[in-house]
């Protein structure tokens, strides 16, 4: 795992960002995701929106939206 990028995994796809640091809120905005319907997990820890992410971090984004009917 490289230390030069911030990696976000969402629905099986990997997104890489070169910013030195970025808040969770900003990351979700960049991916056009709503903080109301997503959870962000880093190292088995769920993060709130104002948590700071940095290069070398790898986060998993979980969509909470489900639907039908």
């Amino acid at each position, binding site marked *: 795992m490289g230390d030069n990028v911030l990696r976000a995994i969402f629905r099986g796809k990997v997104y890489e960002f070169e910013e030195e640091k970025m*808040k969770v809120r900003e990351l979700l905005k960049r991916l056009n995701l*709503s*903080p*109301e*319907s*997503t*959870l962000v*997990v880093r190292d*088995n*820890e*769920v*993060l*709130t*929106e*104002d*948590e*700071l992410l940095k290069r070398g971090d790898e986060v*998993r984004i*979980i*969509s*909470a*939206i*489900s*639907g*039908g*009917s």
Partner: protein
Amino acid sequence: MGYKCKLCPSKAVIYMRQHRLALCSGCYVQWFAKQTQRSISEMRMLRRDERVLVAVSGGKDSLSLWYVLSELGYDAEGLYIDLGISDLGYSERSKTYAMHLADKLMRPLHIVSVSKSVGKAIPELVRRSDRSPCSLCGLIKRYIMNRFAIEGGFDVLATGHNLDDEAATLLSNVLHWQVGYLARQSPILMERDGFVRRIKPFYRFTEKETALYALLNGIAYIEDECPYSVDATTIFLKGILNQLEERMPGTKLQFYNNFLAHARELFEREQAPKVQLRQCSICSMPTAECVCAFCRAIERVGGTFVGLNVVRYEPKQCGASSQSTKAAMTAEGDDNGEQCRLA
């Protein structure tokens, strides 16, 4: 950086802006269970001596509901309806998650096969129908849930509908002024001849909150949306409501709660005298028509209802709970989620 828990010195895992409340993982799990009990008590949904059937789809809401009801000490059994959707192994994978939780809770899971009950699985029924997939599937599921609950002697049927589901449905019903639906949209529908009591104990939780509860308790669930619901209107409406929520926290909760407090009864009062139930001439279940909507729909798509095909899955000891949090955290489809199979 990051919020601190309002109840203890730990780091928060969620900040719920509508409640102005930040909680750590431990406090959140306790808060969630207390709020569930509060909804149950306030709406008089369920008594301790009643048997409750939880309709589980393999998703986060219904599995979390089964889990928390069991944690709260209720006599809860699961019902999984096998829709026979083979795209990406959707139904098989969903069923595995339901069975996995049955094992974890050591509670029985009843599995009803749609294809063995009506002669065709959902994909074929959808192909032959002019209704939207979600509408047809919803009709079939509601019928099966109610019928199985009645035949199984359950007092109550619980579903995992959350605030986002309810607010989106309410928005849709208001946009189209579906007066009949508005009269019946409630977290509790009391039992009457041929209908079991139906409850939605999660009606105050957002989807994010139920997903977090599942994650923190190591409840593995299917993250994929149903292949037929990807373009569903409900998902579009949920997106719009979340945009409103971002700008005006608490909108979804106010929208639905104020409907319950100030408007629903008016619609109910207007509708009540108009609906008189009788027995369906084909299946004997209650209906406002000669033939119930389920029998009409099944007949129209060339199916035949031969009675519910039910398999009772007995749980077996499997998977230590201390390991399962990590399993759910890492990924859906993790090998740990595949250990429990039919005996």
